[in-house]
Structures are given as C-alpha cells and as structure tokens.
C-alpha cells in the first residue's frame, strides 16, 4: 500500500460517502447537510442487509414458481421482459 493512500483527504472521504448516499433509496436518504457520516453508513448497512434479504426472498419465490411450471416454455417471455427492462 503506497504512502499516498494513508493520507486520503477528508474531502475525498466526504465525496465517497455522499456518492453512497445517492445510492440509497429515497426513503432511506437523509438531508445531505444534516446526516452525519455515521448515520449514512448505518443506513447503507441497513440497505445492504435488506437487499440480501430480498435475494433470499426472491430465491424462495422462484423456487415455488419453478416447482409448478417449466420455465423453459416461458423462455421467450422472460427474454422479452428483460429486453424491455
């Protein structure tokens, strides 16, 4: 690790944190001027945990769907939806 890295400026850190803020969904975002770095990081952690849970949940739901129908026959429909998204 170069010595430059250990002198990262507060400005750069601030910028990176505000970039994270914009990745948070509307409901988790706080006023840019009001939120402390700690609060933003906490919200970021909460958001990542909720995304992990969504992956788990969607995996369960896909398992259910795939148990009842052959997704191969839905292939064209799936690809069409993905092209639209």
């Amino acid at each position, binding site marked *: 690790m170069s010595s430059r890295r250990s002198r990262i400026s507060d400005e750069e850190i601030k910028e990176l944190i505000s970039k994270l803020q914009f990745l948070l969904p509307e409901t988790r975002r706080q006023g840019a001027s009001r939120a402390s770095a700690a609060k*933003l990081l906490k919200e970021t952690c909460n958001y990542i945990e909720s995304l992990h849970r969504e992956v788990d949940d969607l995996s369960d739901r896909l398992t259910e769907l795939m148990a009842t129908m052959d997704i191969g026959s839905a292939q064209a429909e799936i690809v069409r939806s993905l092209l639209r998204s």
Partner: protein
Amino acid sequence: MESKSFTTGNRDNPNTDLHGSKNMMASHFLRALFRIQQTSTSSSSFAGRSRRIRRAAYASMAYSAGARRAWSRALLRKLRSRARLRFPRRLSRTARPQRRDMDQAQVLRKLVPGGPSMDYCKLLEETADYIRCLTTQVRLMQTVMDSISSYAHHPMIP
C-alpha cells in the same frame, strides 16, 4: 443469448457503466435457473433448491464484475471454495450507541465481500459498486419472476 441484441434501449439508464455486465448477469442467471430446474429431482428439498438459486444470483453478480472489483474477486473465491455463502445479519436490535463512522465501517466490512481486508477509502468505493450490482440483480430476479408469473396466467399460444 447473444449480447448484441441487448445493446439497445438502455440509453436513459443512469447506470450505463453496468450495461454490458447487466446482460452478462441476466444470461448467466437464466442459464443457471434452467439448469437448476432440469437437475432438481423430486427428492431435492425446497431449501436446497432455493439455496442453489440464491447461489446462482451471487455467482452471476460476481461473474459480471469479474476480476475488476475487490468485492467480486472475494465473492468468486468464496463461491469456488464451495463453502456456504453466508452474510452476517445483525441479530440483536439492541441499540448500540451511535459511534463515529469508523465503527460503522466495521459493520459494513462484514457485509461487503472482501471487506475485512479493505482500508476505509477502498471500502467506500467497493460498497458503492456492490450496492449497484446487488440492486441490478434484485431487479433482474424480480423481472424474471414477474414474467414467469404472467406467463403462467397467460401462456402464449405458439
């Protein structure tokens, strides 16, 4: 599934840097889904199948970012070691007093693959990319699910 046909229609997407990798994610994930359905027997458990799909989700994320990112490299290592994919969850809701952002960074390090070996600055960069990728994967799974459901209700007559 050739990526050429996917290259139109996404100009308005602010995440254009994910454009090519988004397609890679989709094709990898779909192929995995078809494989999982074909190789799932009646004796395989629901939980087992769900775990395979979940694993495929993280795999397609990791492959789409490839070796470019520290988080994806860490995730690929985990996947190749065949170890169970676990992401820690904060079980207790007991409020720890709000501390400096450095302490929250420790929590964050456990959530982002490869986090423990990243310095603060790197962690913030990698987190942003990881979140972008995660949200893309979630949307992808949602789209696949919606289209399968709607197909089930309105199958196209060939």
